[in-house]
């Protein structure tokens, strides 16, 4: 400690703390030294700073502003005949727009909700009065493949809706999961009818 005193370049602050350490003035009361407090405070301050810096390095991986800029699209339904479906690109993902036929609507309604993995009725998944228009994301809720069944002649699975070829998920005519590993029904995006033949997605 005497060495520290002799070193002319030591700041007064450091000399003061070393004197306290030697003389024991600061250890009165609860036994916490002034230096202990400085250690913890410095460590905590540095830790918060490091965490804040680390967050910028992690958050840069999140979607950038141009990706986030919301895009909505308008789709013309006129060319979609009953029984047909089209695929449109929305925010980099496919959306299935399907014109259900009577038989498919009846099949979707005939299911007991309690038997479903993700219980939702056809009415929950379509707009009132437009229940022939089934609009869902074409993204399997298992691991994100595009299910088959939207294009002509594709495998529609055991329940006549969509079939995901990647891991064998079967969706019914309300795009509800019926068999296979997918946990939930195909997601219904936010959309609104602008007229009888135009719909705005997003």
């Amino acid at each position: 400690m005497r060495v520290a005193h002799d070193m002319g370049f030591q700041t007064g602050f450091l000399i003061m703390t070393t004197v306290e350490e030697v003389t024991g003035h600061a250890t009165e009361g609860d036994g916490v030294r002034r230096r202990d407090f400085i250690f913890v405070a410095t460590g905590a301050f540095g830790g918060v700073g490091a965490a804040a810096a680390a967050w910028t390095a992690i958050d840069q991986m999140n979607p950038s502003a141009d990706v986030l800029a919301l895009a909505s699209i308008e789709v013309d339904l006129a060319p979609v005949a009953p029984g047909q479906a089209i695929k449109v690109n929305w925010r980099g993902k496919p959306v299935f727009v399907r014109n259900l036929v009577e038989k498919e609507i009846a099949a979707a309604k005939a299911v007991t909700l309690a038997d479903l993995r993700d219980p939702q009725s056809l009415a929950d998944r379509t707009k009132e009065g437009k229940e022939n228009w089934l609009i869902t994301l074409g993204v399997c809720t298992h691991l994100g493949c595009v299910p088959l069944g939207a294009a002509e002649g594709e495998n529609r699975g055991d329940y006549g809706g969509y079939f995901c070829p990647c891991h064998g998920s079967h969706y019914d005519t309300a795009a509800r999961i019926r068999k296979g590993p997918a946990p939930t029904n195909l997601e219904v995006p936010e959309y609104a009818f602008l007229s009888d033949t135009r719909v705005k997605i997003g």
Partner: protein
Amino acid sequence: MSFPWANQYKPQNPFMQWLDSRLPLPRLVYNSVGAGYPVPRNINYWWNFGALAGVALVVQIITGIVLAMHFGGNTLVAFDSVEHIMRDVNYGWLMRYAHANGASFFFIVVYIHIFRGLYYGSYKAPRELVWMLGVVILLLMMATGFMGYVLPWGQMSFWGATVITNLFSAIPLVGDSIVTLLLGGFAVDNATLNRFFSLHYLLPFVIAGVVILKIWSLHIPGSNNPTGIDVKGPADTLPFHPYFTAKDLFGLAIYLLIFCAFVFFLPNFLGHPDNYIPANPLSTPAHIVPEWYFWPFYAILRAFTVDFILPAKLWGVLAMFSSILLLFFLPWLDSSPVKSNRYRPLAKQFFWLLMVDLAILGWVGGLPAEEPYVRISQIASIYYFAHFLIILPIVSRIERPLPLPNSIAESVLGNDVNQAPAPAAQPAE
């Protein structure tokens, strides 16, 4: 570390003496992979695969650095820049085929290296950390291999990336946010490709760092050997150089012959033709498969089709990751004091059953998710976990091992060991 009878580094050249007292790098090399590292004299050709894995890593790093000079990590140019490498860049085709097949060959030698460790009990005390660092390397290799496969931006690249990143969406509550964070968007896109390129360049150097830790940890007890018994004296070992450097070089020559046969004559045999179709976010290939070296794990992922408390998807993801993380606990799951399966009649049979099981898992993992393959993958997955969690712990308790030889030297030389005194076994310097 090492054994007391290890050769000592004694530089004769004055410059080497000068260097040794200032930066003893040649001494480190001498003691690590030179004459200063005593190796059990009885190690067989299955011990070549560690060195081969090291060579495979170096080949990947060199060819990879070259490819990065010509590749563009952007969705607009990635696919075309790979074709540019194939058609326009001098020897670009060679670099790409060597890199693509080199990844497969890296996994081949690493898998054989792991199976050798399983058979001869190399994961047991005192080499638990050597084994665990190896599992870390395997995980890093898988991440690197997966991200590398995305870079050419073909259909399998895109949909493989979609499926694998969506695995994380199975995590409750925060899953979707994590997927968005990993992708840098709501679907696999330019941000994803760009960051995968960055990380694919980084991870091989991380692997190289872990390899150094692994060799360091290995050289404390020294290498295991086919008898699994410990080194007891100088008669049991030979210096790494020249004996095993020569043996490794011979094995390397054979390895390179087979590697070159693939690079030059079957360059696309291990790849998937769909990856020569540019990525299309609106159309999933009829049958998505990862690279062959992921098939056993992919089969485990797809084996879960029924919800049971947790969703089937989460079970599949947990099982797939557990199938590898399980290996971290292997040194404690197998409590038999005998290391080598050569002296474990029961464990040896189950080892081969596990090999058959892994072959079945690999086979169904590359097939469509249809019956009967789903059922087969379920049975094979159950057996995989049963092997490590039930069979091995029980076998290691009830098994009656065969008598062990008294020493490595005796197992090699029989009773002649007494006529071949230790010093004679050491080479002249």
